[in-house]
């Protein structure tokens, strides 16, 4: 039997193949610590706050070639999140019928109290969003993706692969989302876009071991996670993410030298892996090798100015060097990107405390802890 392909099929196939190869759109941008462009992001589920209906998202579940799914990680305490959601609402209205979809995942906090839920529901109603809004209880999805800053976006194509994951949000990021959407939906050709970077597609078995390792790491079952990541590496020696995740785990376990070795390997395989450069910097910082740490952290920062962990560690390095002004510049930049990050706030609180600015430190500590508690938050004046 002879197969014959129509002209339309061939043209569409060419576009899709080209997009497949080219549409990583800057794999140096890094919204997520554990998922890189080209990989399949984790599935998640929840209840749509607007309708009460169950939302169960799995990458590639629609089986439609021409589809764009944007996952937005947002929070009520993040002013930029409102900008993103409003823009996504507009894009939904423009491209919704052609296959543009959005799910907004609220990551207000680890524990959502009844009053917290009320606030999220009120904000959702105020924005009048035409797409599902789910609350990430226990921040399970947040940790599974390794979200760095809020807001963060994941652009996933119809086959379930992550194509673009910018950290932060700006006009240029919005433009790139529009461009990617139009190409993936077949409304524009790849030639209309600028030079693009190819993403890495790991071997399927390696990907499975990696995902299992990631899930185990999130449950702090580190030894088992490491064993699975070793398997991932065996299945695909060119896959950089397992080395990066092994490094992150070693950092969590306090094994600085082992972490350094893993991050070194990760960047050897993929010199654009921001999380690995930043992790390498952190492992050096922990070993008091400050000058070397600064060098690696600057590489991470140059690759992605929105990667807050690099900024925070640069601030810590500058503090140790006694360069407090520059440290503060880095902290301010990180805070602008991630105003509700409790770890960042703790770092800033300690910085201010050590500088002798006790009232400033207390205010920041209070902001940090109020991100995490389940009790209703008191206004400052009401403690007297």
């Amino acid at each position, binding site marked *: 039997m002879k197969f014959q392909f129509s002209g339309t099929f061939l043209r569409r196939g060419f576009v899709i193949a080209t997009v497949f190869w080219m549409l990583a759109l800057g794999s140096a941008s890094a919204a997520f610590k554990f998922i890189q462009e080209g990989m399949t992001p984790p599935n998640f589920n929840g209840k749509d706050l607007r309708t009460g209906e169950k939302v169960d998202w799995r990458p590639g579940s629609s089986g439609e070639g021409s589809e764009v799914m944007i996952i937005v990680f947002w929070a009520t305490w993040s002013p930029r999140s409102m900008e993103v959601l409003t823009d996504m609402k507009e894009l939904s209205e423009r491209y919704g019928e052609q296959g543009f979809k959005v799910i907004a995942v609220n990551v207000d906090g680890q524990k959502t109290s*009844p009053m917290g839920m*009320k606030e999220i529901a009120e904000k959702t109603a105020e924005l009048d969003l035409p797409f599902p809004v789910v609350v990430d209880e226990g921040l399970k999805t947040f940790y599974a993706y390794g979200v760095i800053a809020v807001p963060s976006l994941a652009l996933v194509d119809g086959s379930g692969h992550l194509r673009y994951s910018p950290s932060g949000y700006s006009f240029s990021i919005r433009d790139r989302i529009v461009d990617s959407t139009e190409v993936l939906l077949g409304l524009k050709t790849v030639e209309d876009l600028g030079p693009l970077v190819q993403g890495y597609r790991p071997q399927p078995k390696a990907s499975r071991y990696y995902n299992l390792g990631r899930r185990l790491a999130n449950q702090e079952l580190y030894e088992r996670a490491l064993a699975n990541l070793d398997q991932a590496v065996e299945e695909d020696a060119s896959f950089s993410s397992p080395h990066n995740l092994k490094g992150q785990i070693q950092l969590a376990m306090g094994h600085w030298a082992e972490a350094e070795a893993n991050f070194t390997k990760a960047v050897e395989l993929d010199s654009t892996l921001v999380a690995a450069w930043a992790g390498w910097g952190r492992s050096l910082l922990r070993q008091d090798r400050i000058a070397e740490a600064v060098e690696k952290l600057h590489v991470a920062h140059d690759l992605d100015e929105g990667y807050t962990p690099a900024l925070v560690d640069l601030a810590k390095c500058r503090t140790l060097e006694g360069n407090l002004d520059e440290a503060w510049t880095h902290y301010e930049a990180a805070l602008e990107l991630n105003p509700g990050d409790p770890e960042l706030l703790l770092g800033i609180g300690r910085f201010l405390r050590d500088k002798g600015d006790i009232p400033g430190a207390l205010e920041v500590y*209070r902001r940090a802890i109020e991100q995490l508690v*389940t009790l209703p938050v008191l206004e400052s004046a009401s403690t007297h």
Partner: protein
Amino acid sequence: MKRSSRTIIVLSLLGCLGLGGILCEDATAADDRRAVIARSRALLADAQTSFAAGETDSALIHLQQVLEEDPANPDAYYFIGLISLSLSDTSGAEVALTEGVRLAPMSRRLKLLLALVWVKSGNYDEAEKLINEVTALRPKDLDALYLQGLIALARDDSAHALEIWDHALAEELGSVEQ
């Protein structure tokens, strides 16, 4: 069969029937209790949904209904306390939460919410007692440490507040002091 044996058998059967009767009564009472619990749970869920939607009046109605079904329901008092607090009705919150703590003296969330109300109204000593009851069992309880910090702050002991919160955050975030 001997008469005595028949008597024993009859008496045993009567005893079983009697026991069965008691068990049936217990089963009926248990079924009633289960039904009350199920209805209360549903009403509490409705109350939470209404509260999240900003419909505090509806939420309070649902909670009143819970207490009509089940007057000793500490969860209802907890939510009444929470709603009262959200409406800045500190005294209403205090009354509800005090009753809740009386009904459920081991409830962490009732104690801490009542402690919060007392911190808000300046009753720091009483708040501290409740907080200490929680931290005796859960020394790293973040909500409790948050309140301890607020009390230290209210007593103008900034250094102690900083120390409490630094330690609490470091534990919670697993953050190494750099």
